[in-house]
């Protein structure tokens, strides 16, 4: 596997500008001779499709959702970062770059992160021009808030619905191109494989989720913007439909999967209320701006919050990390919460949470200000739990939330398979071993609006202009494989439901490859997962047929892929014999219980090559070089 990151030469600050100038352009009249397939209509996919359509390419977009607007990006709450320095509090591109590299625990590429910080400025301009109704101050200027892992206020937001508003902006831009005829949008189409012709990505095979029809689509380039894989844990904050199928199928065809073990556990989700729980609901991290996290000092204290006096409360984040306090990064906050609960300080009926308390903020600022900032989050909390956060503290607990790992891409966002580009959460690129809050929306939109349109054009300029035909044997072969696999799922006709297997897989992953990992647990998981997968293919029951709208079948295909992918995740977690960011190996901790990196041996991107079913994947390494930041131990004290 060839891993050339293709990072442009020259000073960090000039790399992207110079690269943009050096890249080839496609003559306007020739653009419409190129077909580009984009899978996914989240922030990354929708923004890329809208922009590629505007440029004049023939774009075909696919989503398994019934509408492009329903992609999981819609659910992002808290906000989007940009180094605008509108608050004049000392922010700059370099500071956002530095915070992101440090937040990622020095496991990301400097050049990519710097570009991301640069482009953050353009994203806000773009979104405002589209009519995204960001929060404003009374003077009419844009408002900002701060987010975990930063000491400046650089987060732009639209109440607690920032993802919704940014996605609607991108969706509307996409719809404008659909109306203009440059983009052909296929909803309710699930991509089930990619097609390679002579080693280059030249198409995909989809299943129409209404009619069941399996079909090929050909193009000069294939873009995957298919989101993250947190649902490998079954319970996560991700929408139920999020899955790994697109990227895993690409990996099976030769695309390297980078850092799969980097999965982020978000500190502030609502704790599960019972066995039947189908997903976890995130409470935006922005709440940590004004909420204080605490647990009763006494283990097993069953009193309600109001009955616990101040001096019997442990504001543990403020105690451990006086300078960042409740705004400490996600991985640290999550681990500390788990520690508190494990030590018996948990609160709530199942003793599975910690308090997030707004009393001090309400006393200081008044309920109207708090309601203005977090009203809809408070309402959401009350709807779910039946408790009123204006009166009693919220209960929160960590939950799987975001996956920093993804398909390996070079600086141009192209995977090691020529012609296959990967954007948004689906790639591994910018967040290292841990993502800072409000940076995923930024990355998805930077990739889609600004990076990919330029780099894909550059790629296409070197590709022959003749149409790609679906008549090539590769298409028929992949179509047949897809149909056969679908039939195999239906034919098992066992006794257990798809969800039962998914829940079981989730339990293995949460316990052995979750917030904390160790060698023994990972080795057990590597035994248990193949066993579970074998049982799945013997015992699963998928009712109905392949020729109809069949949600059990959709789920079955996705869970079958999770059952393969989970193994690579564990291999990666095992091979990375250090702790870094969200990857916390209990064998490698500092005296204070923080992640302890081993820069000498692990300052690299781990890229896994698929070798066939039942075969161990092979590890390749892309070394990381740091020239502009000094590697240091992250400290938020």
């Amino acid at each position: 596997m060839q891993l050339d990151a293709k990072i442009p030469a020259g000073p960090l600050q000039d790399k992207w500008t110079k690269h943009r100038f050096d890249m080839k352009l496609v003559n306007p009249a020739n653009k419409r001779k190129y077909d580009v397939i984009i899978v996914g209509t989240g922030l990354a996919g929708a923004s890329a499709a809208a922009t590629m359509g505007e440029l004049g390419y023939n774009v075909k977009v696919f989503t398994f959702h019934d509408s492009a607007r329903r992609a999981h990006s819609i659910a992002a709450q808290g906000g989007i970062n940009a180094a605008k320095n509108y608050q004049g509090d000392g922010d700059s591109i370099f500071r956002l770059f530095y915070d992101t590299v440090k937040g990622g625990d020095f496991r990301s590429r400097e050049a990519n992160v710097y570009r991301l910080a640069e482009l953050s400025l353009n994203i806000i301009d773009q979104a405002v021009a589209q009519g995204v109704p960001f929060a404003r101050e009374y003077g009419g200027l844009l408002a900002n808030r701060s987010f975990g892992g930063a000491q400046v206020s650089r987060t732009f937001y639209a109440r607690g619905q920032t993802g919704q508003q940014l996605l609607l902006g991108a969706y509307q831009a996409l719809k404008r191109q659909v109306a203009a005829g440059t983009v052909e949008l296929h909803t309710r189409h699930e991509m089930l494989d990619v097609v390679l012709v002579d080693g280059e990505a030249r198409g995909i095979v989809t299943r129409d989720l209404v009619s069941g029809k399996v079909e090929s689509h050909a193009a000069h380039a294939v873009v995957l913007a298919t989101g993250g894989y947190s649902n490998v844990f079954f319970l996560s904050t991700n929408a139920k439909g999020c899955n790994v199928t697109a990227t895993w199928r690409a990996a099976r065809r030769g695309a390297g999967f980078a850092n799969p073990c980097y999965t982020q556990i978000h500190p502030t989700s609502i704790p599960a209320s019972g066995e039947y729980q189908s997903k976890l609901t995130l409470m935006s991290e922005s709440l940590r701006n004004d909420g204080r996290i605490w647990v009763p000092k006494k283990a097993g204290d069953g009193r309600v919050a109001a009955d616990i006096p101040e001096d019997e409360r442990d504001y543990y984040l403020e105690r451990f990390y006086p300078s960042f306090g409740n705004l400490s990064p996600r991985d640290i906050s999550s681990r500390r919460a788990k520690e508190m609960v494990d030590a018996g300080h948990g609160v709530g009926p199942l003793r599975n949470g910690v308090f997030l308390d707004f009393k001090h903020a309400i006393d200081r600022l008044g309920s109207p200000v708090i309601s203005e900032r977090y009203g809809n989050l408070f309402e959401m909390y009350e709807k779910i739990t039946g408790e009123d956060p204006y009166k009693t503290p919220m209960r929160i607990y960590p939950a799987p939330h975001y996956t920093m790992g993804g398909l390996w891409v070079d600086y141009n966002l192209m995977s090691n398979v020529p012609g296959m580009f990967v954007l948004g959460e689906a790639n591994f690129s910018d967040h290292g071993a841990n993502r800072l809050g409000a940076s995923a929306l930024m990355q998805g939109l930077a990739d889609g609006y600004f990076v990919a349109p330029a780099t894909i054009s550059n790629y296409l300029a070197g590709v022959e202009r003749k149409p790609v035909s679906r008549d090539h044997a590769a298409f028929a072969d992949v179509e047949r494989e897809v149909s056969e696999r679908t039939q195999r799922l239906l034919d098992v006709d066992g006794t257990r439901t798809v969800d039962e297997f998914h829940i079981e897989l989730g339990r293995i992953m949460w316990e052995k490859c979750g917030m904390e990992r160790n060698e023994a647990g990972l080795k057990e998981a590597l035994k248990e997962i193949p066993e579970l997968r074998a049982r799945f293919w013997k015992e699963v029951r998928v009712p109905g047929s392949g020729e109809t709208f069949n949600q059990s079948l959709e789920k079955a295909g996705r869970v079958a892929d999770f059952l393969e992918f989970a193994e690579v995740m564990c291999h990666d977690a095992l091979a990375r014999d250090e702790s870094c960011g969200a990857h916390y190996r209990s064998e490698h901790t500092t005296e204070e219980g923080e992640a302890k990196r081993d820069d000498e041996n692990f300052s690299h991107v781990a890229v896994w090559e698929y070798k066939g079913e039942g075969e161990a994947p092979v590890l390749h390494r892309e070394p990381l070089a740091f020239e502009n930041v000094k590697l240091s131990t992250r400290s938020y004290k």
Partner: protein
Amino acid sequence: MNFTLHVWRQDGPEVPGGFETYEARDISEHMSFLEMLDLVNEGLTHDGHEPVAFEHDCREGICGSCGMMINGVPHGPKGMVATCQLHMRSFRDGDEIWIEPWRATAFPVLRDLAVDRGALDRIIDAGGYISVRTGSPQDANALLIRKEDADLAMDAAQCIGCGACVAACPNASAMLFTAAKVSHLGLLPQGQPERYTRVLDMVTQHDREGFGNCTNHGACQEACPKGISVDFIARLNRDLVVSTWKTAGD
């Protein structure tokens, strides 16, 4: 808690459907309505039947995927929630619950409780955007927007596109959906250049899709999980009048 469910089952758009009765046993009051249906579906699968098809994704009231008539009310009895945010504590033990898909000519049933809401997307295609190219805009703070205007625009922009307004309306009108987008964009300075063509194009498409007329029942506002106000429909109507007058003058 225990419930008797009467659920609409229909194999496809072309075939007739009907109610089937299922028992939902040992349900916790903390379960969401969809988790209750998950449980019923697990049971159906075990018994060798096909589970009830229904759409859902975020399960937190923002993606707009879920939606069903529950005892004749879109998204059920609680108000200001999407079906996924409805919890069983809103019902009484032993209740009979009737569950149906959205009913509207413009929303053909695909299967059971899942309908095709593509018509709403096509209303957006007709003009629900601001025409701006990627990479061309000025600095975001070069444009001052009164907080009141931004807030009101946001009130309208919150629409999740679930279609409850259509299901609630005796005329199956999608005017609240259309008005929400027309108002969101029309309230902002960026939306002014296309304001009057946008409203006309979107309303024309709305009618073409087979949605009914708005006759000011207000049932849509009641059903909207985001509480979007019918005042936005009045705003749309004002813009429509100006628009007709402007195009007449052309």
